[in-house]
């Protein structure tokens, strides 16, 4: 240990020919599971917070890489073909990674890049007679810890080939649910047996591990580098034909999705079909169950949307979808302090509460912003960037409670956001013993506790153990660091850390510096 420390002391900045000092960013890429070096991995250095590429090189046979960079804050990306990973991940799925801080006294020449090898999930889908099912839709839903909460998200989907085989790869290790939907070949085109009595069957959706009950679906734990298998056997059951008619505008043409209840709030797509008025859409081979019909369409009059639930019980079901114009969302941002100019770089975000999908619109110098035609559902509105947050949100043209808009279609929504720059900054270092605590999770939770994702913050510390919450709304907070991810939006999980947390007050435009010690 001592010898090593002496070595560190000898590292002095190198001075390039241009005269600007450069510092080494070097190390080795190792397989996180085995510790063996990884050759031929492409390493790319980017300036943190941008997509500007500073330098790039490929690791040698010994897995080593070496860059000489000016003083700065960098992200290091390793990639091998279609798979990439950021420096500082502590687990294969999720996580923010750590930036590398170069400069005087920083040891950035001995980085260990733990590479979580991608794995795959593959298998074969058969029918009850043992024959392969082609065109079965296999959906992968991932359970992931992100931004202080555990969520399930749609990850990928694929179709089986003529042998009934599917394969997802390369994919990161993690927790996955697998869902399979299909229609019997004899029901679909070109075989078209749907109108023949005795052939009007459908396949019940299946979930890993080959069960029909979504509530009992298990997680497939994929280890890094693992080639997991999940085989399925679909069973045909008597099913229904669902006819959908569309109204609300002339010359509608679009796509309609029939989605089953699925896993943990992530619907399992059963079928999708394009439609045109007056033809409508017909789904055959739909097994009994509860579904959501979602349609999006374009017409000369603009973009139209509709959502409706439908229960399929008997041999047929009819559904009339009234298409409404897609919500038009626009508005203005004004500063809380009269006369204050709106800084550039601010943007308004609308986030779907269910799917967690969102879109952002930049705020123009005059304070106006505008979204493209959007979807329906429960949508959260927020303002961020340039040290701003929305101290007040006023919504006209849609139901609005607790920061969430309810969009049912046909709305013209006008949002007024009052922007406050009463934010402060919290920065500091986390240490383990005398060493910088790289990759620690620092949480800044509002006091009293609130589940508001916009009032609770986390930061994965950088190579020098530093953390930096650049924009924090003024107020009272609890600050703590942990060695592992914290589900801090869950009050019960948060409560475990609060007794040892530091009380922090963030003043408007104030800067607070803190040092945190980890075990």
């Amino acid at each position, binding site marked *: 240990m001592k010898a090593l420390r002496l070595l560190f002391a000898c590292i002095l900045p190198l001075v390039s020919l241009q005269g600007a000092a450069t510092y080494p960013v070097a190390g080795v890429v190792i397989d996180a599971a085995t510790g063996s070096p990884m050759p031929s991995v492409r390493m790319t250095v980017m300036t943190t917070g941008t*997509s*500007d590429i500073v330098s790039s090189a490929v690791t040698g046979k010994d897995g080593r890489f070496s860059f000489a960079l000016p003083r700065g804050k960098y992200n290091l*990306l390793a990639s091998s*073909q*279609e798979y990439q990973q950021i420096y500082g991940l502590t687990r294969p799925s999720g996580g923010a990674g750590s930036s590398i801080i170069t400069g005087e006294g920083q040891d950035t020449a001995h980085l260990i890049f733990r590479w979580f090898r991608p794995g*795959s999930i593959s298998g074969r889908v058969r029918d009850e007679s043992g024959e392969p099912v082609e065109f079965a839709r296999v959906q992968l839903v991932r359970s992931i810890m992100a931004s202080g909460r555990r969520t399930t998200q749609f990850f990928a989907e694929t179709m089986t080939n003529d042998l009934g085989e599917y394969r997802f*790869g390369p994919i990161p290790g993690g927790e996955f649910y697998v869902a399979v939907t299909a229609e019997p*070949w004899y029901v679909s085109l070109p*075989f078209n047996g749907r109108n*023949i009595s005795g052939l009007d069957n459908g396949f019940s959706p299946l979930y890993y591990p080959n069960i029909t009950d979504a509530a009992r679906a298990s997680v497939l734990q994929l280890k890094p580098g693992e080639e997991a298998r999940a085989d399925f056997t679909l069973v045909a059951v008597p099913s229904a034909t669902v006819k959908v008619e569309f109204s609300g505008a002339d010359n509608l043409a679009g796509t309609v999705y029939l989605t089953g209840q699925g896993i943990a709030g992530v619907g399992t797509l059963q079928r999708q079909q394009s439609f045109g008025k007056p033809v409508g859409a017909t789904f055959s081979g739909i097994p009994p169950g509860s579904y959501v019909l979602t349609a999006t369409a374009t017409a000369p009059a603009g973009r139209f949307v509709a959502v409706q639930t439908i229960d399929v019980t008997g041999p047929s079901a009819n559904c009339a979808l009234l298409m409404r114009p897609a919500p038009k969302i626009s508005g203005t941002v004004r500063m809380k302090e009269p006369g204050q100019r709106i800084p550039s770089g601010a943007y308004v975000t609308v986030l779907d509460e269910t799917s967690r999908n969102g879109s952002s619109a930049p705020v123009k110098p005059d304070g106006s912003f505008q979204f493209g035609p959007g979807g329906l559902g429960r949508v959260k509105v927020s303002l961020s960037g340039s040290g701003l947050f929305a101290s007040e949100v006023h919504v006209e043209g849609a139901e609005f409670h607790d920061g969430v808009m309810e969009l049912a279609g046909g709305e013209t929504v006008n949002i007024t956001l009052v922007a406050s720059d009463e934010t402060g900054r919290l920065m500091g270092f986390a240490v383990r013993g005398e060493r910088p605590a790289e990759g620690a999770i620092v949480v800044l939770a509002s006091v009293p506790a609130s589940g508001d994702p916009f009032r609770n913050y986390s930061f994965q510390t950088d190579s020098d153990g530093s953390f930096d919450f650049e924009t924090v709304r003024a107020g009272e907070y609890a600050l703590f660091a942990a060695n592992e991810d914290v589900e801090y939006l869950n009050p019960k999980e948060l409560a475990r850390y609060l007794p040892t947390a530091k009380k922090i007050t963030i003043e408007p435009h104030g800067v607070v510096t803190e040092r945190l010690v980890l075990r």
Partner: protein
Amino acid sequence: MRTYWVGLLPWLILAASAVAQEEPTYSVAGRVTNSATGVPIRRALVQITDRSLPSSIGSRAETARTTTRATFTDDFGDFRFSGLPPGLCSVGASKPGFAADTVLSARREVKLGPSVEDVELQLSPLGAITGTVLDQDGRPVIGVRVLVFSLKADDGNLQIGSFRAWPTDDRGVYRASSLEPGSYYVKADIRAGEASMYISATMRKSPPHEGFAPVYFGGGSKYNSAKPVRLDPGATVRADFALTVLPAFKVRGSIGNYVNRRSAVFELVGADPDLLDWNSKVLLNGDTGEFEIQDVLPGAYTLRITQDQARAEVRLAVAGSDLDGVVARLSPAVDIPVLTQITDLTTSPGAKPRPVACEVSLQPLGNLLYSKVLMEGGLPFQPDRKISSVLPGAYRAAITCSGGYARYATAGSQNLLTSPVLSVQPGVSPLPIQIAVSPGGGKISGMVNEEVSSAGWMILLAPQFPQSTGPYAQRSYRRGGAGPAVFNFSNLAPGSYTLYALPEGTEVEYRNPAFLATLTGGVSVLVGDGETKEVTIGSSVR
């Protein structure tokens, strides 16, 4: 009961009496087999359609409609329908992995009364091409688009017969399935991708990535240097690739006149383009029109960007680094007027004036994936005809006349008969296409003095002078369905021609002079205006 029907149409009485007498029923049974191997097929869907009753008989229309019943074959490939009324039925079989039951051997007409046993239905199995794509170090290359396509000649030009792209997985494995028997080109094309759009105030850049030059199975970067894969019915053929993966670069820039948040097609065409190239993987900023084209190997290219009805073309060269700051300005599509002038209207006294008309079609040159043949939309004889919405680019102008022959066709000073490649420049209003047509012309007709096993002959007529709208192709026919194979070309420009007879079904690229040069055994004919030449020819050799 019978007396009730007296006075009605006799056939209705018969129909009613048949029902009253409890008509006998019959059965149809048989087997479904694989046409390539003869092996019985289990779980094939067999559908029987009753065609014995007319589609409507007055008030009995409901019950008399054709009905379809279906069953699956058992483990021995056998099927049976019973309780069928007498009459004509159609029985067809189908199953995934086999060609559709429109193929004759998979469908039979049977006449019931008595029962029919031993109906054999044959399904033609589909094939697959599968393989592995590895790099120079033997490692799998992931996400390669393997293009599998067949070529056919259409109107003398090469066209895509069938096309699909199949990606390699994390093992570098691809599998192209459900392929009809035939000959396929297999090409490992660039990394999977289309223009993927993002919305941001700033431009997104992606990290460096490796790339490779597209290569055909059997070697070479062009289809005509490749070895097509011959696929027999039901066969699975392996086609493996070993690629040389090299450092690749980005081309970045912005689109001028870009319409916000609408997608665009990016084509990066090399100096010596292939018939079929997948478009590049592109990141497109939907707010600003800034783009980044990925995986570009060093070389000279023409970048072509098409958004809706506008196109930009920029020449660029990529050396050993990323290329930034490319500006591609979209120019709208243009309409090209077409003026037809009919000369020499003097017709012989008493003869009926014949309608004379010409039409122009523009065949885009280069990548067949995005080509769409454009034709003038107006009716013949309309004075203001035009070819609408022509994007900037190079086209081959094909002129077809009826009732006469084109004496000349021009676009400005360009003679379209001798140099048919028309270049449409961005931002320039195009000169009209002018065609001078003379009514009448020469006639060449005749017969082929050889028999072929196929249906007939494909007759090619290649002009031996440059000022022509040819070559022409025609299928031979038999007068009244019998006798020798004959042909008849009319409205020919006076001059010297060579006639070739090729067995029908050999679809050839006859508009390609290099192809015509490979033919031997043709017969030369000289024809004058108003003259008819009778010729007897033998088969020509390719």
